[in-house]
């Protein structure tokens, strides 16, 4: 009899405890989800840009996730760097200096990106050629849809480029 009473109590305890744990888990999950970026923020995290709008030799800045993305269309005589070029003529790089995060400027006459903070220089392909930057300008994840580039989604071209 006594044993039975205890096991009944245990059962109630486990049932209650288990149910409470489920409730707690649900509450924590909901709390976790509230901190995720809002739908509008997520939507703005993927940016589409029509590459054909850029004329040869021209550089355009696209805003993506609060950062500038440089889209440069190379002219045939500009230095080619096949492993960093999209569709054979576009250089798409994150406009954040890899040294300390300043924003470099495009100098069309010298065909370089020059960082005003510490004098770092990158060539037209975004490869560091002078000064303190430790590595070339980063390439944002992208996907190609015809003439349009989708920033924020990694497509096969991007993965191939990252491997190469």
């Amino acid at each position: 009899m006594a044993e039975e009473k205890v096991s009944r109590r245990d059962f109630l305890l486990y049932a209650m405890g288990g149910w409470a744990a489920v409730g707690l888990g649900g509450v924590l999950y909901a709390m976790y989800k509230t901190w995720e970026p809002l739908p509008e923020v997520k939507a703005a995290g993927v940016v589409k840009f029509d590459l054909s709008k850029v004329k040869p030799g021209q550089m355009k800045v696209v805003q993506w996730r609060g950062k500038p993305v440089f889209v440069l269309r190379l002219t045939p005589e500009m230095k080619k760097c096949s492993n960093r070029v999209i569709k054979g003529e576009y250089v798409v790089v994150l406009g954040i200096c890899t040294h300390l995060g300043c924003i470099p400027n495009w100098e069309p006459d010298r065909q370089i990106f020059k960082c005003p903070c510490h004098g770092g220089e990158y060539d037209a392909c975004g490869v560091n050629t002078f000064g303190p930057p430790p590595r070339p300008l980063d390439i944002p994840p992208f996907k190609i849809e015809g003439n349009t580039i989708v920033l924020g989604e990694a497509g096969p071209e991007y993965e191939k480029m990252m491997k190469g």
Partner: protein
Amino acid sequence: MEKKGGFMGWLDKRLAVDSLWKVMMSEYYLPKNINFLWSFGVLTMLVFVILVISGIFVLMYYKPDSHMAFDSVNKTIMMDVAYGWVFRHTHAVAASIMFLVLFVHMGRGIYYGSYKAPREVVWVTGFILFVLMAATAFTGYLLPWGQMSYWAAQTITTLFSKIPFIGPDLVIWIRGNYIVEDATLTRFFALHVTLLPALILVFTAVHLYAVRIVGSNNEDGIPMTKEEKKEKGIPFWPVFMSKEYFVMSVFLLFFFFLVFFNYNFAMDPINFQPADYLQTPPHIYPEWYFLAFYEVLRGFFFSEALGLIAFVLSMFIPLFLPWLDTSPYPYVSGKHRPMFKVIWWIFVADFVALTILGKLPPTGLFAWIGFVTSIIYFIFFIALPIIAAIEKKKVATGGGR
């Protein structure tokens, strides 16, 4: 127990306020061999009260919105609200001075071995309070939404992205955006004014309760029972507090001198430019109280991962002091530990050096000095168990005094 009438008697029957008062105040005895450094604990409470009161008043006009925050601080509070500037300067200076008082309070605890058995819980709760204060200071620093606010938050949250596997997603979750933005500001605001101060209150209560159970340490680290302290010592109320009032008065003179005449150290000029996510200030540095830890992060300049590990370690290693250093009486207080004294003063000098280096550009010679000083910081914690082992041996062979 004597019989009391009136309101207090009525209340005592219902809340036992008499017993509470005795345990917390009038029958909590302190030894006489303590010095003025023992007054810094109550000073942290004083500064916390100042922070809460000044905080409530700036809260009445502050707008936690990325479009309105900067102006609500720099225009509304500073220019439009009558005496608003007093509350803002008081809040900013108090945040800074809190860390000065905390460092002295913690330094006293380390030097006199106050973290040792049986005071581990006092040390651990105190350490948690330090971390909570740091979190409160960090979240609060973003709220004026100036350039330094913004880039400090951007830099520190970026550190989370270096955590393996989950890092990049974690940092977006913390910010609620791909960069520090409105969502970040508002959640930091919520934490700064609700959860963090509430946790500070809870841990302060446990901290004070714990110190009343195990009693205060003393300059010589002599273990004393409550009876011995009652016989030879002084009660917290009214004797200790009457001395404390004097210290408080001197402290408040110094504090309000800073608030009214020298508040600039707590108000970085770069922070009077509104936050701009496309423009990094050329030189970003934290407030002075985080510089030492920041320098440890930069000290390992040749490896980002190593710097990050060292940074986290440098902040959390003091938590383990009670278990790193377990030598018994007479080797409790640094006053009677020749070997400890040497590494302690090296540690203090090193902490000051790290703080100075933290604000200098991390190039050339400074980078190397930063590396060496970072290593010395850890040597203190590595040397403690060794020294404790030597001292334990001395005690076992009948050494000491």
